[in-house]
């Protein structure tokens, strides 16, 4: 009994890691890494409202509510950007914290009102509680992974184009907005199915860390995505095993810490891009050298085209 329960949870976290790796690769490359964080936080009030409306802890009901309010959060972000003069970062912080605050207030009053009802403990969604994963939950995660994977495979060409050069995508006559929304929905769905296991606060980590670690090892998008899925999956499994071994330690944070370990290892040891490799062979100067020789005066764009977080403060 214990064994099969562990197996169920392992399958669940493995699949979750794979799905996050897939979707997260696009999120990181498109500099939308924190959008997943916003969706995860924004999902909490919807989850609570779904519980209040249907009085069931059926995971489908709760997650549908969560998905709807997560998407509402994403829409709020674009509306606020469109209609106010607030900057990206402020808008994300506002939507994230206000929705999350609503969620916290709802979970607390649900807990106070339905103290005797089983399953009213929605606060477990905040940090996540993988150990209680059921067969049905895993089946849902499997469906989500299958759907996400087939969409990504079918539209790989289009999604690659969108991520690399959105304008060119649009100019070639593709619906960049449509693809953008599709990716947003895929991200939201992945985040939401991850909530029960990893929790609101940390789901974003699964989207960001494995792809960022995978980027060190390859210069090809398809391979990067596979490595990200592998790291995500292995982190899921390792985190679950660690949590089973050290009784009482929560699964979600352990999964995140495992993937962080992967990131740090990649950061130090990866060929060409790793810290060790770089200090030994390729200095920055050499990387820029071919173009200094060519009489080129335009700096490397990737060093100065990031989102405006604190870059300007560094003199």
């Amino acid at each position, binding site marked *: 009994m214990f064994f099969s329960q562990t197996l169920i949870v392992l399958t669940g976290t493995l699949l979750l890691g794979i799905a996050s790796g897939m979707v997260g690769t696009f999120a990181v490359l498109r500099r939308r890494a924190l959008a997943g964080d916003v969706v995860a936080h924004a999902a909490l009030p919807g989850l609570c409202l779904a519980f209040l409306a249907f009085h069931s802890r059926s995971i489908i009901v709760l997650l549908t509510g969560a998905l709807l309010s997560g998407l509402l959060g994403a829409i709020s972000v674009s509306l606020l950007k469109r209609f106010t003069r607030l900057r990206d970062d402020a808008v994300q912080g506002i939507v994230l914290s206000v929705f999350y605050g609503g969620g916290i207030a709802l979970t607390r009053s649900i807990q106070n009102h339905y103290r005797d009802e089983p399953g009213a403990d929605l606060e477990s969604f905040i940090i996540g509680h993988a150990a209680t994963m059921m067969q049905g939950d895993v089946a849902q995660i499997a469906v989500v992974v299958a759907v996400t994977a087939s969409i990504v495979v079918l539209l790989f060409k289009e999604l*690659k184009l969108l991520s*690399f050069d959105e304008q060119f995508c649009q100019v*070639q*006559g593709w619906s960049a907005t449509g693809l953008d929304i599709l990716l947003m929905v895929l991200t939201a769905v992945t985040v939401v199915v991850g909530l029960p296991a990893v929790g609101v606060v940390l789901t974003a980590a699964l989207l960001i860390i494995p792809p960022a670690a995978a980027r060190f090892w390859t210069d090809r998008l398809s391979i990067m995505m596979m490595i990200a899925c592998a790291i995500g999956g292995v982190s899921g499994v390792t985190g679950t095993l660690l949590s089973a071994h050290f009784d009482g330690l929560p699964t979600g944070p352990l999964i995140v810490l495992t993937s962080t370990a992967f990131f740090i290892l990649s950061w130090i040891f990866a060929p060409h891009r790793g810290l060790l490799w770089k200090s030994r062979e390729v200095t920055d100067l050499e990387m820029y050298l071919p173009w200094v020789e060519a009489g080129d005066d335009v700096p490397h764009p990737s060093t100065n085209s990031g989102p405006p977080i604190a870059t300007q403060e560094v003199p």
Partner: protein
Amino acid sequence: MTSSDENEKPAIFDIHDMTVAYDRRPVLWNIDLTLRNAGLVAIVGPNGAGKSTMIRAAMGLVPMVSGSVSAWGSAIDGQLRRIGYVPQRGSVDWDFPISVFETVLMGTYGSLGWFRRPGRVQRDLTMQCLERVGMQDYAKRQIGQLSGGQQQRVFLARALAQQAELYFMDEPMAGVDAATERVVFELLQSLSDEGRTIVVVHHDLRTVTEYFDEVVLLNVRIVASGPVDTTFTSANLQATYGGRLSILDTMAEAVQKQEETE
């Protein structure tokens, strides 16, 4: 001159009364431009004149306040697959995990349509385009490992792979070395000889007469446009580069505030 005769062919490219504004403040005023002949067209003007904005708005990347754009006699939205585009080099993330070959291959995506994967035909075409810009040896490199001029050539190869009849190129000579500049001009010349139209945002006034057939002088409005011999005159250049029109600035302010000027 724009009154269309019944038997006249529709213009290759036509902008009618296009005004573009950022945050309600007009940055391009009443642009009217018609291209009837194949050839090399330079868009020339000082910094902040809206050169890039003009072609970006024409291709639908920037919303217009008013006006319409058509190509071959019908609205441009439906004609995008016949149009090639070379954006400014800074518009993409050069650290993206993608090789030179894959980047150029993207030019063929438009002809493929949804879901279909590029096959042998597209791969051969990609290789040919790389050879035309002299980048075949770099096919497997990650794009960030190229010099600025080489990156520009990759963008050109990608545009070639689009096999378009009309090209828009946003500063393809910005920050490139002399070797690349020559390669680029030879390439543009051969495209033009094949009967295509290439519109280039250009900032080097010295090379205009040498390479281009037509020129558009732009400074928030079109000062003059036409064949280089008759249009690229010192009087017109004076009008283009001789400072901004202060009245337009005042008016832009008024329109932005939605109030009458004092």
